[in-house]
């Protein structure tokens, strides 16, 4: 389509823009508006996270111990380094340093692959021990590591004083899901009166903890896989975009007056990094 490139001496200036600054400013506003949509896109998951963590804090405390902080921290460093190389690539493009631009773009891509590699290792391990999202959740023995979370292994289960505490506990809890309305009528007044005395502490792996309460641990993995999965998809898209940039950089398309694509892609990449900056403490560092 010949009309796309109406400005003969400026091969990448589209016909409907006046000059390169006009094109650059328009693209820059466009990418910022796009980042706004990305922030709101992720906000739904952050919102779900906030609600469920506030509803079931014990689930998050216990289940997050199955994540390996070491890998999470390494991945954070990998992404931060790739953000540095991406920002540096913009500098190289602005200054017209072609070889360094190519190198920094390649480094960014390498980091992105490194990040995905580590995520692959983590995901594989989770799947191996049955810590899968949703209905697939079926943890094997020892899926949750024994060490380092003694305090987190306890779960408080409500007791109902109207029945024999010893025998009642499990049966009562097991029935809760099936008859919520009657249960509510029967139990609520006593609770209001008894407060803390109605609860007893048992470890998560105590046989008396009913299965449907144990299964709530899968909420964490549902949210974990949704958040990191969506983030991972963004990393993969970033890899595609940076390969495209790399190809154009090698062909020498970018100049100090035309480097918009490098700048805009770097902005996208920083946002991906930014989201991980929040995901890391929210998922890996709960206690």
């Amino acid at each position, binding site marked *: 389509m010949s009309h796309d490139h109406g400005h003969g001496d400026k091969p990448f200036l589209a016909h409907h823009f006046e000059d390169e600054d006009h094109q650059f400013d328009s693209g820059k506003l*466009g990418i910022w508006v796009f980042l706004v949509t990305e922030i709101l896109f992720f906000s739904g*998951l952050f919102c779900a996270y906030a*609600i469920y963590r506030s509803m079931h804090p014990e689930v998050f405390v216990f289940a997050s111990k199955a994540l390996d902080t070491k890998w999470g921290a390494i991945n954070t460093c990998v992404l931060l380094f790739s953000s540095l190389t991406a920002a540096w690539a913009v500098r190289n493009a602005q200054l017209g340093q072609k070889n360094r631009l190519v190198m920094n773009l390649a480094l960014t891509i390498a980091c992105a692959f490194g990040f995905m590699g580590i995520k692959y290792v983590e995901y594989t391990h989770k799947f191996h021990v049955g810590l899968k*999202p949703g209905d697939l959740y079926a943890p094997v023995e020892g899926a949750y590591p024994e060490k380092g979370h003694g305090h987190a292994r306890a779960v408080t289960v409500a007791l109902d004083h109207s029945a024999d505490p010893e025998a009642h506990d499990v049966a009562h809890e097991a029935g809760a899901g099936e008859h919520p309305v009657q249960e509510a009528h029967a139990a609520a007044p006593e609770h209001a009166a008894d407060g803390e005395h109605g609860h007893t502490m048992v470890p998560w792996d105590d046989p008396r903890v009913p299965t449907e309460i144990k299964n709530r641990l899968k909420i964490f993995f549902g949210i974990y896989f949704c958040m990191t999965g969506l983030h991972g998809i963004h990393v993969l898209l970033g890899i595609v975009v940076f390969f495209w940039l790399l190809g154009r950089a090698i062909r020498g398309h970018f100049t100090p007056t035309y480097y918009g694509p490098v700048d805009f892609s770097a902005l996208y990449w920083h946002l991906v990094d930014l989201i991980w900056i929040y995901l890391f403490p929210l998922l890996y560092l709960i206690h």
Partner: protein
Amino acid sequence: MAQIDIPLSGRRAQDVPVQHLDTNYLNVSKGLLSWFLTLDHKRIGVMYLLGITGAFALGGLAALGFRLELFRPGMQYMTHEQYNQFFTVHGAVMVFLFIIPGIPAALGNMVLPLMLGAKDVAFPRLNLGSFYLWMIGAFFFLWTLIGGGLDTGWTFYTPYSSTLSSTAVIQATAGAFVLGFSSIFTGLNFIVTIHKMRPPGMTWHKLPLFLWGMYATAVIQVLATPVLGITLLMLIMERALGIGIFDPANGGDPVLFQHFFWFYSHPAVYIMILPAMAIVSELIATFSRKHIFGYKMIAYSSVSIALLSFLVWGHHMFVSGQSALSGVIFSAITFTIAIPSAIKVFNWLATIYRGSVSLETPMLYALEFIWLFTIGGLTGLFLSVMSTDVVLHDTYFVVAHFHYVMVGGTLFAFLGGLHYWWPKMIGRMYDEGLSRLASITAFIGFNLAFFPQFIMGSKGMPRRYADYKPDFTLYHQLSTIGTLVLGAGILMIVYTLVKSIFSGKKAPANPWGGATMEWECPSPPPHFNFEHPPHASDPYDMERVKWDEQVGGWVPVPGYQSRVHH
């Protein structure tokens, strides 16, 4: 290169702007591929128009289907399940495939760059991408229809949609997800275009009101639609994998889905109505031959509606288990939406007052819009009061209310805009008498279809029921007859417009006397829109143009100096 085919006897060519060009955007290149791969905003607009017309036909036929079923109490020719599918398809297709993209994507694409005197939108490739996303979304909906239908209602409420329904929920939600991104990219494109492509002299306060409305719409599209995207994604995960976010059995919460959904879908209601208001502002000014009254108030009210729309989502959930505190807050904020809406209506009326009103078809639609939107808006106040809403919630009163706004408002404004810009788009005039008759037919049919629904709703007829007590028969029959009349009106409109393509007389550049820039290029516009970019001035200075008998249209007054209006 271009031929001017009007007689220019005795005048220099510069005196009269070019009215027609032999080579225009419609015939500049040929072949299907030249359309499917086009980056021209006008061609993309035309393709959208064809697409949404198809969606409208599908949604309309579904509506006709269940209205006929409701003609008599008892079940005539549908099962209950089929009835559920019919109203769901009607709602989902009309909302996601027709109303939301209708004005911004079809008319907006056609007109927005022309109004700016620009050659195209800021990102033409993204624009074409949006269209293809729309197509993919439409294919997902077709897949839904073939692969098991959909019976959740267009709102996809959990837990029915996530665990109980046996229909093709995943395909439908995936379709709505993709359509959401189509809408986001259109909004993004328009924001950047309005910011960056304004011509010299067009300050924000000289922006035509259509563009203010499109801008406010785009803000909502960009801020709210991503939340719909993630909500639908979570719903898909919930249904496919049972991750438990919306499922009480797993410690989740179905009310959360409604919060998520309405955080998008309430603002989406304004994605539907703001562009309609934007069109009406143009129509009223042009056909009253008067400067629009209260320009700034209309402009700012669009933006304030856009922002307020994010603060009222909870009024859809007064009876669904949200907290009483939220109910009070959302109810109070919902009242305030009435203020900017009323500002617009009063300013339109003030513009008409003592204007030299001519009742051409687009103006007829604008007046019908004011009538219908006022009814729709005022009945909304009933629903924003919590105590009355508890009674009226999920009755036909609600159905009538939002149809008065979404059909009476948006559809009629869309038709008004379509008739207004049709000569520019196609280069032909339609049969004025026939199109007025069609417009009035549709108006009568619409009122007959939906006014009885207010009455039966307030008498307690619940919405979405396949059957009803014989007491309601009269209202349902009036409603069904009205639907048929409305359908006949729509068919007349389609006939009139299609006929004009083949036998309409050639349209002048400015058939209505509009003072905005799109009337300064020939009809239909050439590929690049303007031979010489026009200079922007007050878009509502109607004295800038005068009727020219020889041209058969309005032409700029030579050497006219704009008076300061503000």
